């Protein structure tokens, strides 16, 4: 005779958790950009360790999701990795850090720099081979582009004055890490990613190199000195003037204590100096 008592006991234990009443006195929900989400999680845990009865949930989903969730109240604060558009005037942006977008190639690629004209030609499929190469034969460029809807892609296209329909990519990726992995394993690849992510990986030993734009090196330093042209602000957005817990959290994120966390993600803090 099977041990039915054991089976039911096991099933009962599985449901023990549902006996607890969820406590929701102090809770914040943040959703939005996947570039910002790791930083937001770090800020959230630092905030929670300071105020132990607070729960902050960070979910991903993209800048557009952050905006729509904030608008219809599903999230308290939205994570947006770009400036707000004119159509998003009903929301208030609180900038907490700065990031940039840089082109990356494999470390062994001898190319020193690419002009804006060259970049435009490469991405629209008019230049297909690397101009300078270590090999005797011409090396085809593997063009990596980001999927539509990402703020990284929108900023890239806006800066180089390209339309998405004119781009002729070889590979389309969704996340920064996808591009980083492809470039580090394919010597002829070209991609654009967040500087924070790229510089972090480069310091960890990933065989990539950041290309300068318009003669200016792509690094956290040039971002800080406002020299680097392709920069973007990372924002926390709210539907109205923040009050209570949201206000405290935003103030914390813009304060000096947040700097270490922001620097760790290889972004630039912009407040609280």
């Amino acid at each position, binding site marked *: 005779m099977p041990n039915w008592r054991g089976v039911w006991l096991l099933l009962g234990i599985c449901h023990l958790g549902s006996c607890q009443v969820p406590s929701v006195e102090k809770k914040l929900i943040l959703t939005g950009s996947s570039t910002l989400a790791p930083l937001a999680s770090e800020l959230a845990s630092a905030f929670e360790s300071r105020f132990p009865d607070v729960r902050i949930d960070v979910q*991903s*989903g*993209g*800048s*557009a*999701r952050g905006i*729509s969730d904030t608008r219809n109240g599903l999230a308290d604060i939205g994570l947006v990795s770009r400036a707000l558009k004119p159509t998003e005037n009903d929301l208030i942006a609180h900038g907490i850090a700065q990031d940039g977008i840089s082109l990356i190639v494999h470390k062994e690629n001898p190319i020193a720099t690419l002009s804006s004209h060259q970049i435009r030609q490469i991405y629209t499929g008019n230049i297909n081979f690397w101009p300078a190469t270590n090999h005797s034969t011409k090396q*085809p460029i*593997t063009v990596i582009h980001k*999927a*539509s*809807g*990402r703020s990284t892609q929108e900023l890239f296209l806006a800066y180089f004055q390209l339309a*998405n*329909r004119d781009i002729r*990519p*070889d*590979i*389309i*990726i*969704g996340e920064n890490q*996808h591009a980083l*992995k*492809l470039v580090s*394993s*394919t010597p*002829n*690849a070209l991609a654009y990613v967040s500087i924070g992510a790229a510089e972090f990986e480069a310091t960890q030993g990933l065989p990539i190199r950041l290309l300068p734009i318009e003669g200016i090196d792509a690094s956290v330093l040039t971002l800080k000195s406002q020299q680097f042209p392709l920069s973007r602000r990372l924002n926390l957005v709210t539907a109205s003037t923040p009050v209570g817990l949201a206000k405290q959290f935003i103030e914390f994120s813009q304060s000096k204590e947040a700097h270490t966390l922001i620097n760790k993600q290889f972004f630039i803090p912009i407040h609280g100096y």
Partner: protein
Amino acid sequence: MAIDLWLPRILQLCAWLCAAIIIAIMTFLLLESLPLIIESGFWSFFQLQAWQPEENRFPLLAMLIGSLLVASGAMLIATPLGIAAAIFGRYYAPTPLAIAYRGLMELLAGIPSVVFGFWGLTILVPWIAHWSPPGASILAGILVLTLMILPLVVLTCDAALLKVPPQYLHGATALGLSRWGTIRHISLPTAFPAIASGIVLQMGRALGETMAVLMVCGNVIQLPDSWFSPVRTLTANIALEMSYAMDNHRAALFASGLLLLLSATALMLLADHYRQKNCVQY
């Protein structure tokens, strides 16, 4: 006794509840995509032009072909390999090896698609890129997908072969049939319905796989002109764009999910029809 009155009713309820889940999902997809279908018409999805959400154009044909190519390629490789491996495990391998083999397959069945995708991205794609850049291609997708569905094909075929009544095998031995002869003429036909339903399930899974194909197929929306061209599958499209889509774009993605489901339904109906014709009673 009372139990015999209500047990069948409860079981019937369970069964119809399980069957109702897919109806709920289809209704959900239909409701979400209906505004766009009404607005643009049903056939607007079956064009070959470029996918341009900004310009309200959502042709799905190229991605549908991409999905079908990757899934059917993987099935074509995994099915014979899987059945052969299951036969190996049941009839040719020494018992400890067979147990280890089955354990390996069960282990592989639980590894997340992300791990397979990651392996494909860091090892398979650069390897293919040596022969023909960019490396992320239909071929990469087929190989990774084969790797993913092979364990389950092996396991379901193995379970099917296990249920062949031992009396059949004893009878075959008594009649002097060779091992391969027994397998070919007795075990396989007997286990065929179970094997067939296992294969059909895996075909569905191959069509529905998202993460791994997203990482290795290149995601460029185009009609492929060789096995080395990048493609985008319908599932990868939904995964890439769903979080960033609004209104019509979002509805188009739900419509692509519905299209995928309908293609899978068509395949299942075909397989079901074939199964009805060739079913061996046991």
